[in-house]
């Protein structure tokens, strides 16, 4: 049987997805990108192949996407993550009208049309506001592990606000909130609100098109999803592994 691979080389993590000949998800892997994008792509694909129990020779076509897509020498084609996220999200949730992808280095909002086609998109500009990096910096500052941030935030009440969306300025706001003895949970909640506000303004520039699917590592954060749903007044689709949506889209393109 022929297999198809999609590899998404992101700023922080690299994902590989393998589809079988029928287009069913055979397996996937997620590794850290580190300093060498080519090695990360090879490692991710190798891991996924081991999981599926297949060899590289059985992969008929590979499509690479993400920031490091140019560094995947064995890819047959390179496609932007914008097209891949749209297609991946459409495949998982066919009613998707908008994709909100919050990755490590950037966040983007994509308006998706029939068949997973990109109708329009917008991205954050050259700063880390509204990205995974924002939360990562704040987690380090508050000495909380990144994957606990969401739960801590949902437990909190209070009315603490972070007015800045800028990572550097927000960090100094956090410092002063800590100095004022505000509970960590409340500060984390405020940080989540800040990131949601930033991304929400991007959603608004494209107009809200239901249904909304979230992808990227930050979609694993329950608080971000929940605050976004509050803004939207609607529930949001999130796959059990939102990080692989881009790689899935790439694999689907490989099979096309």
């Amino acid at each position, binding site marked *: 049987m022929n297999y198809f691979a999609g590899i998404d080389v992101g700023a922080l993590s690299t994902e590989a997805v393998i589809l079988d000949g029928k287009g069913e998800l055979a397996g996937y892997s997620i590794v850290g990108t580190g300093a060498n994008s080519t090695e990360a792509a090879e490692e991710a694909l190798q891991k996924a192949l081991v999981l599926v129990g297949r060899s590289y020779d059985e992969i008929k076509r590979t499509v690479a996407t993400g920031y490091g897509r140019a560094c995947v020498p064995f890819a047959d084609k390179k496609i*932007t993550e914008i097209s891949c996220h749209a297609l991946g999200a459409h495949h998982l949730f066919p009613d998707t009208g908008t994709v909100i992808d919050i990755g490590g280095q950037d966040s983007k909002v994509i308006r998706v049309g029939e068949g997973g086609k990109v*109708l*329009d998109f917008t*991205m954050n*500009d*050259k700063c880390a506001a509204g990205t995974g990096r924002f939360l990562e910096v704040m987690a380090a500052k508050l000495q909380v592990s990144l994957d606990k941030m969401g739960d801590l935030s949902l437990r909190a009440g209070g009315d603490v606000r972070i007015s800045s969306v800028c990572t550097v300025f927000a960090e100094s706001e956090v410092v002063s909130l800590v100095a004022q003895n505000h509970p960590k949970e409340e500060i984390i909640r405020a940080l989540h609100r800040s990131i949601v506000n930033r991304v929400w303004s991007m959603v608004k*520039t494209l*107009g809200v098109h239901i249904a909304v699917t979230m992808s990227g590592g930050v979609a694993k954060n329950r608080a971000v999803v929940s605050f976004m749903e509050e803004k939207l007044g609607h529930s949001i689709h999130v796959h059990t592994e939102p990080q692989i949506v881009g790689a899935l889209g790439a694999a689907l393109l490989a099979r096309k």
Partner: protein
Amino acid sequence: MSLVRNLRYHFMKDLGSPALMRFSRATRKRRSRQPNPNFGPPLEASARLKEIMTRHYFLSRYAEGAKPVAWVSSGAPVELLRPFDFYTVYPENHGALCGAQKMGPELCSVAEEHGYHQDLCSYARIDLGHYFSRKTPAGKLPKPDLLFASNNICQTVVYWYKALAHYWQIPLILFDTPYNFEEINGIDIAYMVRQFEEMIPTLEKVSGRRFNYRKFQGIIRIAKEASNTWGEVLDTMKARPAPMTIFDAFGHLAPIVSLRGLPVALEYYRTLLGELKERVDRGMGAITNEHKRLMWDNIAIWYKMRDLSNLFAARGMNFVTATYTNAWAETIPYMAESRPFESMAKTYSLVILNNNLNHRLGLMERLIKEFQVDGLVIHSARSCKPYSVGQYDLRRLLMQRLGVPSVVIEADITDSRAYSEEQARIRMEAFFEAMGV
């Protein structure tokens, strides 16, 4: 004005600069570039353009003391200065030159060291950076005797030129144009005409020459003809394939900006127009394989012209129109020799950046239709707030009305530090994917 300097200026004008041109022509032949298969043959007029602009900057250094020198903003009604024989230097054109020569960050940094903020327009920062460091790719710029600006392009020029007036200790003439919210009325026109009348004594004093109304009318006539010809030059790009790319037009724009009202600009655009018409007749395109036709919005990204030009041409995409290049042709029909002041007030107050967004929307719609545009590339320029504001609304409306796909590139006109290669590239590649190229 000194006699010695005057003699030197005329010597350089008549003998020095032609000699320089001959030398530059001779050296240019030795550096022939490998032709890029994605482009048609280069425009022959380009050599003449280079000569005109090199000569303009070369001679400018000898103008100091020989002729009255004015530094002028791109939207100022320069026609009024011409009868007084001012040698005009355009800091914005100089800024674009610095940008194209990739000197933007260096000169901007100098201004920033003197306390000017990074968010300030990079043309202004380059100009102030030049003031503090006197660095320029043009060799030397002449010290101005007068500053002449209009706020029809932005409010920044007001404060930028006030700073220049403070540093150089020279007079500043500011032409205030009421913003066109709905329409420019008779009171607005009277207000602007009164300003022109008030300018004349200052211009006479600085230049030492009397105002000559007839000469002024002649200049209005030449300026109008040159702008009209520029408009015809742009119109040749309606042809399929277009005989020129907008990246060429960004370069060929220099004379209409800096030499408006002088016979040389008119002569040049007649030559260029002739060549373009011939290309259209022969079906010769600027790029070899024109699949898609695009429109550009906002000022050029001067340090990325070649890269962008190659990137799009390789995919068979040609930019055939731009709101920016159009700005020097759009309002010229208002200009009338018989009523120079009133008509000039209208011409200059109705320019794109002094006009409301509805007007801009209508203009973009018209250009998209007339030039058969398939896609729109919007440069959101960090420097130019009046041009960049409203772009997201405009693109949304254009998409709704005409279904034209578009992409926004966040960059800057000359400060390459505000440009992120990867961020821009991913946006453009996604745009290419959406357009199926």
